[in-house]
């Protein structure tokens, strides 16, 4: 099995890079944290990596708009290598602020060719607040590499600008193209239908994650890298207590790892 190498972008207020790197390594990839300036100055080359991860964080403090300034810096300087990276059918994942960066780079779009400008957005939560809470998700994209064989997930969100938004016709196209990868649901799997807090930000059609047409470029608001261990689950002590009493082993892994494993398996 070839071990893909993931480039974990760092710098300017990205702050989930350590755990994102840990997630990829745990999933079986090699992973390297690379400062965006080292890519721009040519000290590191995008073409040397198979996976590009835009981790979560607060690039530029969310000033002007979340992800906007890093997106501008990235795409102004790295448009060409990024284009080639996509053409080489490699994988891109953005989580939370990384998703915001991708959206604002034009990497997430219903259009046939990415990087043609921003066509969708992530905007302020309807609550007007930053919120850290766990949400139930259903996987709904046939082609998304990262959610392959996943039906449902339970993950934390932690954001103030996580409402995925686009004109209705764009949302229709995304749905039609199978690009809506994760949706917010109730605990029983029923669609959240915008109800708070199941849909934590008011995103229309409960959209939590979106991929491109190929399924290889993927952005999500929830944080799979925060559920790598069973003990991250907010009610793990309850679940572990029950399992122990019933004589079952207590799992050690968290469900978020599946996203990263899917990325690694893609290169098998």
């Amino acid at each position, binding site marked *: 099995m070839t071990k893909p190498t993931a480039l974990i972008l760092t710098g300017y*207020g990205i702050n989930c890079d350590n*755990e994102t790197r*840990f997630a990829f390594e745990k999933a079986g990839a090699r992973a390297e944290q690379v400062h965006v300036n080292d890519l721009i100055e040519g000290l590191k080359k995008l073409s040397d990596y198979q996976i590009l991860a835009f981790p979560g964080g607060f690039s530029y*403090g969310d000033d002007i708009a979340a992800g906007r300034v890093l997106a501008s810096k990235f795409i102004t300087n790295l448009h060409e290598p990024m284009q080639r990276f996509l053409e080489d059918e490699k994988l891109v994942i953005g989580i939370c602020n990384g998703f915001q960066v991708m959206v604002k780079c034009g990497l997430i779009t219903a259009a046939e060719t990415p990087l043609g400008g*921003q066509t969708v957005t992530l905007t302020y*939560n309807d609550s*007007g607040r930053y919120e850290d809470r766990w949400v139930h998700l259903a996987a709904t994209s046939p082609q998304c590499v990262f959610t392959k064989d996943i039906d449902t997930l339970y993950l*934390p969100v932690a954001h103030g600008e996580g409402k995925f938004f686009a004109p209705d016709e764009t949302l229709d196209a995304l749905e039609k193209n199978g690009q809506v990868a994760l949706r917010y649901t109730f605990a029983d799997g029923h669609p959240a239908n915008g109800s708070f807090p199941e849909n934590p930000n008011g995103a229309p059609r409960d959209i939590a994650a979106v991929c491109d047409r190929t399924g290889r470029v993927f952005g999500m608001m929830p944080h799979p890298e925060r559920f790598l261990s069973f003990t991250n689950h907010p009610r793990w002590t309850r679940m572990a207590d029950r399992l122990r009493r019933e004589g079952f082993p207590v799992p050690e892994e968290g469900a978020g790892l599946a996203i990263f494993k899917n990325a690694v398996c893609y290169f098998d």
Partner: protein
Amino acid sequence: MASRIEIIHRKDGIDAAGLALLRRMKADLNLGARQVRVADIYTIDRELSPEELERCRRELFTDPITQESAVNASVSLDFDWAVEVGFLPGVTDNAGRTAREAVGDLLGLAFADGQAVYSSRRYLIRGDFTREDIARVAALISNPLIHRVRIASLDEAKVEGLAFEPAKVTLEPNFRVDEVELELSDEALSRLGGQGILDRVEADGREVRRGPLALDLPSLYAIRDYFRKLRRKPTDVELESLAQTWSEHCKHTIFACQLDEIDSLYKSTIKRATNEIRRRMGTDDYCISVFEDNSGIISFVPGFNVCYKVETHNSPSALDPYGGALTGIVGVNRDPLGTGLGARLITNMYGFCFGNPFWNKPLPTRKPDGGEPILHPKIIFEGVRLGVEHGGNKSGIPTSWGFLTFDDRYMGKPLVFVGTLGLMPTEIHGRPSHEKQALPGDKIVMAGGRVGADGIHGATFSSESLHAGSPSGAVQIGDPITQKKLGDAQHEALALGLYRSITDNGAGGLSCSVGEMAKESGGCYVELDRVPIKYAGLAPNEIWISESQERMTYAVPLENVAAFLDLYRRRGVEATVIGEFTDSGRCVVEFGGASVMDVELDFLHDGLPRKELTSNWTRPERPEPAFPERSDFTEDLTELLSQLNLCGKEYVVRQYDHEVQAGSVVKPLIGVDGDVHSDASVTRPLLDRFEGVALSSALFPSYGDIDPYSMAACAVDTAIRNQVAVGADPKRVALLDNFCWCSSDEPGRLGELKRAAAACYDLAVAHDAPYISGKDSMFNDFKGFDECGNPLKISVPPTILISSVGFVPDIRRAVTLDAKQTGDRVYLLGETKNELGGGEYFRMLGERADGRPWIGNRVPEADPARTRPLYAALADAIQKGLCASACSVHMGGLAYALARTAMAGGLGLDLTRADAYTETGLSHGAWLFSESQGRFVVTAAPERAARFEEALSGQPLVSLGTVTEDARLRIRDESGQAFVDAGLSDLKHAYKKTLDW
């Protein structure tokens, strides 16, 4: 000529910020607006072509999906009133700084010094309001100390336009270095110490002074004597530098003073306890570096240490709650960052003590004529909350632990505790990472933010009470992203071994950081003209003592300087060589080639004369509340859950990222619905290991109204007990002390201090829990006027916060307090006495009956001789997996712990009072609500009950009943008669409604 880009959310979308203000106007001011929209405005003070501006507007500032925008025009006139809020010149404008960088990056051009982008916000309000109404709205969203505000009706806006001029700082060049005359009368010397160096005399004869040095007469005599020997006068740089270094904030002059018969309270209590405990632990001593560095270091697992520091930022938060709290949290981050050779930041904690946010009486004022009212407690609450939100979230540090406490005596000065835990490898490049050593010849490098006039007199300011003349220049706003970049670059520099020593720039700025590091090499030489400044016009003494944030000072060996500077440049962080460490024994500072400071290090650090103070204390006799006896306490319990000190604070916790870094194990909110507060948090600093760190804390300011000894003793005992409740090892709990006192020049207050410190010693030694770091803030008093213009002093209740950091041997054995399964047995561990004094039940009853808290006399007393073996036994039972849940009993008593156990579990409890370990004659009310120390509520699976009881044999343990399916908390007397019978949904409703904002 400046240009302006204005951006607003399209009218067909949702303007979340506008809606938030609309809701707040209704909730806080009872003003019903028809619509509120928010426009962001960037004023670009640099020549740009129309094409360049348009490109910035389109590609940088405007979201093509949700926003519309305009260049040099009002983006919307859809309002009746507009309020525009921008920063005053010189105030940190993070969005403006980012915009400047982004515009430069996008257009590939540079901004020269003095060219900048300024951000402001315009609130567009529709509704039938008067100008006075809108002024009240403006007061809600701005602060005159940092903001400028314009209010305009639509007509006015059409005529006059809306935009501000750029908030540019324009100062005349200032190379002034004054010699300061000290051969003065005592009266004149006192004025110098209290009000500062004379800056100038106005035409009308009025003296303008630079702000307090906070030096008392003995200190000024010592300085005078020193300079007499040198046969010269001190410069203003020297005097300001000595004032910073000798400040109460830096030298803890009160804790170090001769108090009555005691030679330094600090040495004889806090430090003595730690020394004795460490001696006793011998080879098991896990303290690595305590009280020495910017935070206390203890060992964690082989290969790694953790360090922890808790600070306060009270005075700035009283004036600008947002900026004060943000600067506080980002500032305390730099303590671990500057500990040893630098730690990684793992988790933050917070603790807020506020006045009642629902205060509806007139506010005290700073001026006798009703001018300058203090900020409303809710405005302070909101500002502080947001400051810590931005500080933690934007830095990528989880805020895993915190608390809020309310008392009206915190109205004049809130207490804002902020803490940060760091992780460091034990060794780096074969050297212990907790040791640092600047060597002669090493270059002094300052990195991070630039120096401005902000924060000048910060260290001396916090040593003074707040009064009408308090310099608002002490207010500043932190910049978490600049610091994040700085920290990231530092981790790389550390890995490359590029520097030999490091400390942060906090209070006193360069004067303190360089002065402190100079002790390592034996001297320093600084050229102040090399220090990068935000704007021209700063005098040398200002550059030297400025507390501009987000700066670290490094000792970089000559051979590494180029690599160090290159690395920081590539990371977008400014780093500058400003001088050299020497072995001259002197602190030498030059400006423009001339010496402006030349003082022996020994005098700088040890020349401060010790204070001699006296104290007294007598236990107050308070009326014993007439205790209401009743047959049913359901209502009392329900109401108790809604009290400010006990109610749920999910509103705050949810807005703090408590899960970033992926190490969250026991979260601050737990249970089936994730809405009940836990007693401690557990975090896993290393994702590939199973050891964890538990954080908790305790404070009982109202116990101090009866006896400060009990206040401190109970805080220590509870801070340890809370650790045990989540599965930490009580043999490895380390403590931090934060004394926040008031009027510490009064013998009575010092007497209280002495008693509290004595308890700190006794309890730590009894539990073998060492102090590893601490901080004090001795003058938390507000002096002002009531609504009639009468002088008024509001002093915080003397408050000691004990923070605890515990070791969890295996996070997979951690427990939470929620009842787990129907049929589980419910136990009470510990002894219950008639100890309602200073407690929450009395507070509630008093407020209900008399409009103010009852206090009483029977304050809870800690009895470590009895609690220590209990804690050890329970910790052992938890490690063996015998407990399904464990809840520490503290504020609100047994009833509060039972309610949390039930609410968090979503399960009922059917219980019968059992009195094997109850003081005789205790009424049901006292049994329910007494805050006796050393108790837990534990549930255990029936099949493990026997083993659990055996593990606790010899300990005070009673079985109270079982966990039930029906969602009721029922407590019966021996005859089976229920004296509490509450539905969980009612309890939960009460618990959540108070701060359901």
